[in-house]
C-alpha cells in the first residue's frame, strides 16, 4: 500500500505467492478450510482457558485448580491453531487486516490477554495452584480471570467485525 513507511504489503504478498500460501488460500476450498481450523481452535481456546478462568472466579467450586490447569495446554494448542491459520489469512491478504481497525483492536485484545497471562504467572499463579479444591481464589486472581475472559470474548467480537471493516476502510495510524 502506498505511503506505509513500515510494512510492504506487496513484499508480503509476493512471499505468500512464492511459497504457495496465496495459491492455496485462493483455491476453491482453501479459505473455508483454514477458517474451520480457526474456529475449532477458538472453541478449544475459549473452552479450556474459559473453564480455568471460571473456576478461578468461583464457578464449579470443588474442582482442583491444579488439575484444571492441565487443560490449559489444550487451550494453548487452540491458540497455536489460530496463530497458524491467522498467519495464512494475513499473508494471503495483508492489506485486508493491517489497515483494518477491527483487526487492530483484535490484536490489541490479544496483547491484553497475553500480558494478563504473563501477569498471572508472575504473581498469583503459585497461590492459585496451591489452592485446595474447595478454596476460593484470591481477589487478584479473580480480576485476572475476568480480564482474561473479557479479552478473549473481545478477540471473538473484533474477529467477527473484520469483514465489516475491510478496504476501503484504511486505518494506518503509523503512516
Amino acid at each position, binding site marked *: 500500500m502506498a505511503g506505509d513507511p513500515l510494512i510492504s504489503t506487496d513484499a508480503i504478498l509476493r512471499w505468500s505467492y512464492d511459497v504457495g500460501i496465496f495459491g492455496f488460500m485462493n483455491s476453491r476450498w482453501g479459505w473455508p478450510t483454514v477458517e474451520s481450523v480457526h474456529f*475449532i481452535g477458538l472453541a478449544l481456546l475459549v473452552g*479450556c482457558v474459559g473453564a480455568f478462568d471460571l473456576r478461578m472466579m468461583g464457578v464449579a467450586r*470443588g474442582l482442583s485448580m491444579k488439575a484444571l490447569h492441565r487443560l490449559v495446554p489444550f487451550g494453548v494448542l487452540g491458540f497455536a491453531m489460530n496463530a497458524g491459520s491467522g498467519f495464512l489469512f494475513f499473508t494471503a491478504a495483508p492489506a485486508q487486516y493491517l489497515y483494518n481497525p477491527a483487526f487492530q483492536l483484535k490484536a490489541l485484545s490479544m496483547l491484553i490477554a497475553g500480558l494478563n497471562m504473563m501477569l498471572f504467572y508472575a504473581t498469583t499463579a503459585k497461590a492459585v495452584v496451591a489452592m485446595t479444591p474447595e478454596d476460593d481464589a484470591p481477589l487478584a486472581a479473580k480480576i485476572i480471570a475476568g480480564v482474561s475472559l473479557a479479552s478473549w470474548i473481545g478477540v471473538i467480537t473484533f474477529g467477527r467485525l473484520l469483514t465489516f471493516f475491510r478496504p476501503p476502510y484504511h486505518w494506518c495510524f503509523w503512516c
Partner: protein
Amino acid sequence: MIAIFAWIEQTPLSIFMREDLWAFPVTLILHSVGMGMLAGGGMVIGLRVLGVAKGARLELFAKFIPVMQAGFWLAFVTGLLLLSAYPAKALTNWVFALKFVMLGAAGLLVRAMAKRVLPAGAASPDWARWVAGASLVAWAGAITAGRFLAYTNHMLLVT
C-alpha cells in the same frame, strides 16, 4: 417452499436483519460467542473424560453444563435471527442440515456423558472414552459445517 421463503423474506424482521447496519454483525458476534461457550464447554468435558486433568473430579465437570446451555440458547436465538434474514440461502443448502446432524450427535453424546459417565466418577464405563472422542469429532464437524455453509449456498434470496 419458495412461497414460504418469499413470505419470510418480506417480514419486517427479515428486512431489518438484512438492511440495518448493526443487526447482522451483532447477531453474528453473539452467535460466535454462544458457539464458543457451547462447543468450548463440550470440548472441555470431552477432554476430561478422555483423561486430561485427571486430578479434577469428574462429576464436578457437570457444573460447566449450565454454561454450555446458556451458550446453546444464545446460539439458537441468534441462529433463528440469522435464518430469518436469509431463509432460502440456508434451507436449500444441504451443509446446513449436516451442521445440525453434527450438533445433534454432539448433544446426544454430551447428554450420555452427563447421565452415565460424569456421575460414575472413577468408575467410568469403558465406552466413555469412545463417546468423548466421538463428541470432539462431532463438535469439530459442526463448526466446520457451520463455516462451509457460508460458501456452499446456491442462492441468497428468492425475492
